[in-house]
C-alpha cells in the first residue's frame, strides 16, 4: 500500500475532522479519541478504497458514524446510571458546560448547536461549517440527500427559536 498517500490524506484532513468532532461533541477529549479512531479506521480500510473515491467525504462519514456510536453508548451509560440513581438525564449529547450560556452571540450559537438533536447537529455542521454536499451528508447519516437537507433546515429553525429575544436578532429589523 502506498503509505505516502495516507500521509497526504492525514495532513490534508486531520485538522478539519478534529474540528468537526470537537464541534459535534463539545469536548476536546472526545475529539481526541474520535479523531484518532476515525483515522485508524481509515488506515485499515484505505487500501480497499477505489482510487477515485472522495476521501474527504469518506472521512466525514467515518467520523459521523463514530460520533453516533459514541453518543449512543453515552446514552446507554446514562440510562444505566439513571436506573440506579435519581440524577436527572441530560438531553442527547449535551455538554454540561453548554448549559452555562456564553453572553456573546458566537458562544450562544455554539451552545445552541451542541444542544441540537444529534442527526440535525451533525448534518448542520457538515453543511454549514464544512460545506459538504447534501448527498455526501446523506450517505454519512444513512439517509437521503433530501432528509439531510431537512435535518439542516430543522437545525436552522431550532437555532432561530433558541435565539428568540436574543440581542443578535433584535438589531437588524427591516421594519
Amino acid at each position: 500500500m502506498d503509505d505516502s498517500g495516507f500521509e497526504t490524506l492525514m495532513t490534508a484532513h486531520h485538522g478539519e475532522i478534529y474540528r468537526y468532532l470537537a464541534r459535534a461533541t463539545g469536548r476536546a477529549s472526545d475529539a481526541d479519541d474520535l479523531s484518532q479512531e476515525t483515522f485508524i479506521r481509515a488506515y485499515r480500510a484505505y487500501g480497499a478504497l477505489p482510487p477515485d473515491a472522495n476521501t474527504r467525504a469518506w472521512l466525514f462519514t467515518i467520523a459521523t458514524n463514530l460520533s453516533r456510536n459514541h453518543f449512543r453508548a453515552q446514552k446507554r451509560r446514562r440510562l444505566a446510571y439513571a436506573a440506579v440513581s435519581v440524577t436527572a438525564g441530560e438531553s442527547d449529547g449535551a455538554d454540561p458546560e453548554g448549559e452555562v450560556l456564553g453572553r456573546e452571540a458566537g458562544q450562544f450559537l455554539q451552545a445552541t448547536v451542541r444542544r441540537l438533536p444529534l442527526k440535525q447537529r451533525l448534518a448542520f455542521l457538515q453543511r454549514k461549517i464544512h460545506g459538504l454536499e447534501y448527498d455526501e451528508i446523506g450517505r454519512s447519516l444513512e439517509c437521503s440527500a433530501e432528509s439531510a437537507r431537512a435535518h439542516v433546515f430543522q437545525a436552522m429553525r431550532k437555532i432561530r427559536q433558541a435565539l428568540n429575544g436574543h440581542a443578535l436578532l433584535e438589531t437588524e429589523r427591516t421594519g
Partner: protein
Amino acid sequence: MASRCAEIEIDLVASAMSEATPAASRRVEAHLERCGSCRDEFARYRVIDREVATMRSEPAIEDEIARAREALRARLADVRSRILRYRVFATPFGHVAIGHSEQGVALVEYLGRGSRLDVQRLRRVADVEVVEGGRELLAFQQELGEYFEGRRDRLPWPLDLRLARSDFHRRVLETAARIPYGGVISYKGLAQQLGRPSAVRAVAQALRWNPLPIVIPCHRVVGASGALVGYAGGATTRKRRLLSIEGVPLARIPHDYRVRREAMYVRAPGDAEYCLPTCPSVDPFPQGGVLFGSKARAEAAGYAPCTTCRPDLHPLVA
C-alpha cells in the same frame, strides 16, 4: 396570509442560506414584498447564517490538533506494524489469498472451494490485524499467474514470516525457501540441512503449516522414497501440478505419485556440480541432495556439470 407564510417557510430559510432554487427564490421575494413579518424573519435567518459562517474559524484549537496528530501518528505506527492486507484471487489452483505486511508478503493461502479467508484463525496465530487490501496486491497476483503458467521461475518477493508458528518452523521455512526451482529434496534431507537429522516429523509439520506455500516451495519436499506424501490438507494434486509446471518427472504409484528419481539429475549435499544418477562418484539418491528434472534447471540453480559422468555430454537414460 399566515398559512402562506407557513407554506413558504422552507423556501425562506433556504433562500436566507443562499440555497434556494431560482424558482423558490422568486416565490420568496414575491412573498416578502407583501409580508412584513416574513421580511423580519428572513432578515433574522440571514443574521444567523452570517453568524454561523463566523463559527468556521472557531475555536482556535491548533495546539490541541497538533497534539492529537502526534498521538495519532504514534498509534498509527503501531497499527501499521501489525496490519496484514490481503486480497483473494481466482487462479488455476482455485481461490488464493495473498496478504502482505509492511515488511513483505506474509500469506499465500489456498482457499479450496471457498473464497473467504479465515481471518480469526490468522489472528490466533499472530498479533495481526487482517484487513482487505488494495490494488498494490495486483502485482503479486500477476506474478503468481505467470508462475502457474510456467512463464516465471521466481517469486522474488520480500517475505514476512510472522505467521510461522515457532522459531523452529521459521528456520525450516527459511531453509525450504532456498530449494531451487525444478528441484526436489526429501524431508529427511531438509532435516539434515537444518542440522536436525532426526527431526523429520517436525520438519514435515513446519511445512504443513507453511503460511507461504508456492513462494516457500514446500511442494519441492518429498518422501524419502520419492513419493509426494502430502500437501496442503492432504491432497497431493496441487503438489503434483506444481512439480509438473517445474518439469519434475512424476510416475503414478498406488494412492499417490512419486518423483522419478531415476530420471533426474543429482546434486549431492555440498557439491557444486550435478551428476547423472549413474555417476560413480555420487550416491544415486543422496540424503540431503537435490534432484533436478533437467540440466537447464540444475544449471539455472548455479551448478556445473560433473567432470566425471559428464551429464552435459551423455543423455540421462531412465
